[in-house]
């Protein structure tokens, strides 16, 4: 063997170091490549391994491993064997696993569509909410302006025409509530009042509140208690005795109908 080693430019000492892993990278690679193709060197490597095994057996101070190491190893092996024996079970349950996979796929698609629908509905609701918030904000601004203590109440008419009494009525039939704003109302003498009437589509006029003009000839009045659900075809204002009337006693002073 020695001659073979020398003829391959690998001496026995380097071969020993190679087996020990005690060579640096380039030498290790060079000798390893040589050993691959040299049967005599491979045999010498095996003999060196035997020498080292003998050296190890005689040199290492004897120490007993902890007993748990045996239990750990044998438990792992037993578990691995159980898993291996489970291969057959996994084999014939392919159809079951395929069915489960399909069910899961369908569920995923269904959930994906649900999510898409929910996202679309959510977007619609957001848009609707934004519109309502915008309308609500506008209503609050209108109310704030109208009801502000310093609010000026003006009615603009044709420049050369004499000012005419005018009233605006806001009515909610469902809530049984009506709000009136009037301008250019001459103050009434003692013992008289303006009275608003709701003119139902059928039947007699219904009292809808009494009011007086202020010093600026303006008036505001909120009246509640109109018959719920009664449909109005218009409103009218009459001048009544100060305690009001159950039915109009005078012709309408102002009148307006639903267009």
């Amino acid at each position: 063997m020695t001659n073979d080693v020398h003829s391959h430019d690998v001496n026995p000492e380097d071969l020993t170091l190679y087996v020990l892993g005690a060579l640096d990278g380039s030498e290790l690679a060079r000798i390893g490549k040589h050993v691959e193709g040299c049967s005599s060197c491979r045999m010498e490597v095996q003999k060196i391994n035997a020498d080292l095994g003998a050296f190890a057996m005689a040199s290492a101070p004897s120490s007993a491993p902890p007993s748990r190491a045996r239990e750990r190893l044998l438990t792992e092996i037993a578990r691995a064997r159980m898993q291996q024996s489970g291969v057959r079970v996994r084999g014939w349950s392919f159809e079951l696993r395929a069915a489960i996979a399909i069910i899961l796929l369908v569920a995923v698609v269904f959930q994906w569509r649900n999510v898409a629908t929910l996202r679309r509905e959510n977007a619609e609701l957001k848009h609707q909410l934004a519109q309502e918030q915008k309308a609500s904000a506008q209503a609050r601004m209108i109310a704030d302006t109208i009801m502000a203590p310093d609010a000026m109440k003006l009615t603009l008419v044709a420049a050369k025409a004499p000012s005419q009494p005018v009233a605006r009525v806001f009515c909610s039939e469902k809530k049984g509530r009506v709000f009136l704003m009037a301008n250019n109302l001459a103050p009434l003498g003692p013992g008289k009042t303006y009275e608003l009437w709701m003119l139902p589509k059928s039947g007699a006029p219904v009292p809808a509140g009494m009011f007086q003009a202020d010093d600026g000839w303006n008036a505001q009045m909120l009246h509640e208690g109109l018959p719920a659900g009664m449909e109005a075809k218009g409103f009218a204002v009459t001048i009544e005795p100060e305690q009001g009337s159950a039915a109009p006693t005078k012709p309408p002073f102002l009148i307006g109908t639903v267009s």
Partner: protein
Amino acid sequence: MDSSASSPMGMREDDSVLVARTRRRDQDAFALLYDRYSRLVYSIALRVMRSATAAEDILHDVFLQLWQSPERFDSARGNLPSWIAVIARNRAIDRLRQQRETVDPAETVLISSVDIGSEIELANFVDRVREVLRTMPDAQRNVVEMAFFDGKTHAEIAAAIQEPLGTVKTRIRSALMAIRKALQP
């Protein structure tokens, strides 16, 4: 090393028989091998790693490899304790110095003329090697230990003992040749 592990009948089964049974997935045979050589493997791993926890991991890995690939040991060419001792050492060195390229422990093959078929033969085998080491100069034994147990390169050993590289190589080779000669029939 515990070489007393034997079969339930009190007969010490040959290592080659236990390895053959292990190839057939016989856990009892494998457990007997473990009981026989776990102390050897653990001792070598502890000598290299100097950590009980790390040595326990090496012990686990080596015997797991034996269980998974018992065919790697060729009982016709060498004895199991020598083979498993080298496997343990190489695996421990790899773990110790993972950055450095070494010989693949899985490829370890050995050929020995010594047949260890009984506890007496095993004890005799170890005694002969210990006698060689006892009479060996300390300087020579130390360089082998530094290479084998500490995983040092020949350059590192030369620097540590402040001797030429050639001296280190010669001492290591001579030490192993002395062991081989002592074990020849």
